[in-house]
């Protein structure tokens, strides 16, 4: 895509343009600076604790010693359950909103409003609700499954909103073109619209994964506190963020392990998001050809 800057390089509003340039750089540097500061803080306190055994062993002495391996496994399982449930549900709802409802119509307004409100439900309320609904009412108990399902409810609005945006952005030309060829809407979605919207869907997925990985309050009451290696999805498993919370708030002398766990969490995010980017690039290459 040709950048506008390549096409035009004379300045008509030098002051405005310079101010905007400065402001954008300043804002970006501010955000980056805050992140680097945060990361440096984590590294400063936690790097000394990081080694292979921290990754590969189970916690001892309430997490002050030992590692976090079972907790990493539980975290990945919980997030996987959440995404496996929420992604199809979210995509389906987004497709309904963008392809089958009119913007500003009653259906769109009702569903949209309920999603906006759902996005604002506090995570601790999700936790209490998840406990009452999944753990007790559905009888799943404290388990990775209840935790994952609770998180699925939580990330749903994010996934739906972003996917809807992505699909609405696909030019109507292709919708009309597909219809004129007698393609079913299913085919048009599957072959063209969804692949074209993939970058946006991916951005939403990353937000969702990030949110799910970072969640604490919703998991304390659902996937629980047990730091043993889970043997099935019906086992309770402690998520990293719950572990971090416990270490910082309840365990005296747990701070270094907490910082180190936070670093592991960030590494995990890099891995998961990297995989997501790689996967979408592959799908895009196979499905969509623009160059």
């Amino acid at each position, binding site marked *: 895509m040709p950048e506008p800057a390549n096409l035009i390089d004379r300045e008509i509003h030098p002051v405005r343009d310079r101010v905007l340039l400065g402001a954008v750089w300043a804002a970006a540097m501010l955000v980056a600076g805050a992140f680097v500061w945060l990361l440096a803080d984590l590294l400063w306190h936690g790097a000394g604790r990081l080694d292979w055994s921290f990754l590969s062993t189970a916690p001892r*002495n*309430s*997490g002050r010693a030992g590692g976090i391996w079972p907790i990493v496994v539980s975290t990945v*399982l919980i997030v*996987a*359950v959440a995404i*496996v449930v929420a992604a*199809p549900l979210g995509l389906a709802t987004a497709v309904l909103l963008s392809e089958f409802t009119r913007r500003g119509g009653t259906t769109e307004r009702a569903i949209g409003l309920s999603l906006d409100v759902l996005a604002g439900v506090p995570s601790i309320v999700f936790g209490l609700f998840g*406990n009452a609904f999944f753990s*007790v009412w559905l009888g799943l108990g*404290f388990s990775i*499954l209840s935790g994952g399902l609770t998180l699925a409810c939580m990330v749903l609005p994010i996934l739906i909103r972003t996917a809807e945006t992505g699909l609405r952005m696909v030019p109507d030309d292709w919708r009309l073109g597909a219809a004129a060829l007698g393609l079913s809407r299913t085919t048009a979605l599957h072959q063209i619209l969804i692949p074209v919207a993939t970058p946006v869907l991916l951005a939403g997925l990353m937000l969702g994964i990030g949110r799910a990985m970072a969640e604490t309050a919703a998991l*304390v*009451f659902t996937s*629980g*506190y*047990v*730091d*043993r290696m889970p*043997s*099935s*999805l*019906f086992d*309770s498993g402690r998520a990293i963020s719950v572990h971090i919370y*416990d270490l*910082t*708030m*309840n*365990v*005296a*002398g*747990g701070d270094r392990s907490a910082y180190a766990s936070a670093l592991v969490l960030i590494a995990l995010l890099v891995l998961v998001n990297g995989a997501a980017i790689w*996967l979408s690039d*592959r*799908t895009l290459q*196979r*499905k969509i050809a623009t160059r």
Partner: protein
Amino acid sequence: MLSKLFTTGALIFVALSTPVIAADDKIVITGSSTVAPLITEIGKRFEEKNPGVRVDVQTGGSSRGINDARSGLADIGMASRALKKDESDLKAYTIARDGIGVVLNSANTVSTLTDQQIVDIYTGKISDWSAVGGTQGPITVVNKAEGRSTLELFLHFFKLKASDIKAHVVIGDNQQGIKTVAGNPNAIGYVSVGTAEFEAGQGTPIKLLGMGGVAASVENVRNGSFPLARPLNLVTSKEPTGMTKLFIDYTQSADTHDLVKEQFFVPNGP
């Protein structure tokens, strides 16, 4: 591509969903987040001694422990407080105690406070450290959130009501109190004596104040001379039997005293 991925995902999902044969005996314990780390450690040692037994510890607060023990959702509840009057239907087993002491930032020049001074500070009558012999600076009163057992203990000891206290920062868990006081030279708070002693030893800038002439130390909590302490309890709805009884007995035995000390609590008995 995506559909293949989903199929694989679904297969893994199904494989993992198949519950493995449940452990011979599973004890579910829920409740206080203060007690949970200790019980987790005791549970692990108990599991080693009794193969086939699983101890699942869940948190959620003392009231959750009480409720779950009462409703039968948990075999045992954990509470970092004594039972209340309307909880006489339950049975409590004290496994350890936890002293509560007043802490200041170590930069603070004040080294002792009388009970009256503490009351005056917490009720807002004294608002500057110079009034109690320190260097000038506005006092930041750190208080616990409504309902928390340390708050109730504190209020009870100083004969105050929750609404009497004029706090500047309200905190939840113990470590938040320590971090808040450590980060603010003019703060005053009250936290668990054991953890404060440990943190001070680790170089965290806080110091414990004595109370009523008794130094705040684990030793003084153990021998009963320190006035502010709370029991850490396991709670059951009926007389425990079988594995549950075995576990409760084990938690109260001397076998676990080292674990109790590791968590900076005060073991039962001498």
